């Protein structure tokens, strides 16, 4: 299995285990959208630390994933973007501001927790 999706409390934690083909990414996105409803998740944490490369397609897929999750009534946080991958994304000049990110799982939980308390979105 290339992506493991686990439930923890109100959140789904999706860990990408290895590089994914375009098709696998879209399949993952669709499955996540479905499970958000089925499991009534409030937050979705996507761990991308296993991705060596985040190119424009992967980046846009993560953006659409976050937008879809939001439409399904939950909030998505991307965690584990590696430093070299972050540098590539910046040089690439992709606007990833709509994506909510955190350094690791702990921070992502804090981000989701804060939002639940405030009932809004940081920096929006």
């Amino acid at each position, binding site marked *: 299995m290339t992506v493991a999706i686990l439930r923890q409390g109100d959140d789904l934690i999706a860990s990408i285990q290895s*590089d*994914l*083909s*375009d*098709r696998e990414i879209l399949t993952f996105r669709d499955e996540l959208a479905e499970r958000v409803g089925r499991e009534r998740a409030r937050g979705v944490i996507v761990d991308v630390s296993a991705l*060596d*490369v*985040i*190119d*424009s*397609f992967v980046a*846009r897929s993560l953006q659409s994933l976050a937008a879809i999750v939001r439409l399904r009534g939950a909030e998505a946080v991307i965690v584990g973007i*590696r*430093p*070299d*991958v972050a*540098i*590539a994304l910046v*040089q*690439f*000049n*992709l606007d990833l501001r709509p994506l909510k990110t955190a350094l690791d799982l702990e921070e992502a939980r804090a981000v989701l927790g804060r939002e639940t308390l405030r009932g809004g979105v940081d920096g929006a």
Partner: protein
Amino acid sequence: MEHDVVVDITSDSDLVTARAEARALAARLGFSRTDATLVATAVSEIARNIVVHVGRGRIAMRLVREDRRHGLVAIATDEGPGIQDVEAALARGNAARGGLGLGLPGARRLMDEFEVTCGPERGTTVTMTKWRVLDELELLRERRRDAAGR
């Protein structure tokens, strides 16, 4: 040619191979982790360009040696209809058409040299290079290697 790596591109799953091969070659050639990631990302973009616009092509990667620097050159070739207006494609991509056109300008920003040529009838070749300046120790080794080769 040295360290020749060729990846045939026929479907999106070949991009996974192309990325892994690009990263592995960059690491073998002594590039930093960051530069290896930049190269692998650029290779992924030009490979996707082939899959999306033409459907079939190949990417060849190899080492080029110059006096004080080594380069990793990646050459993507396809036999598609070519690009009508290369300058326009590089300037803005085809972002307006469904957002799939960031590939070429994005890849150009990640590499040191970048060139697109189209055949007279068909075909597109993208040639891109990332350079790494050799340190003193490597220069010494290079000179010994050259001397031994003569």
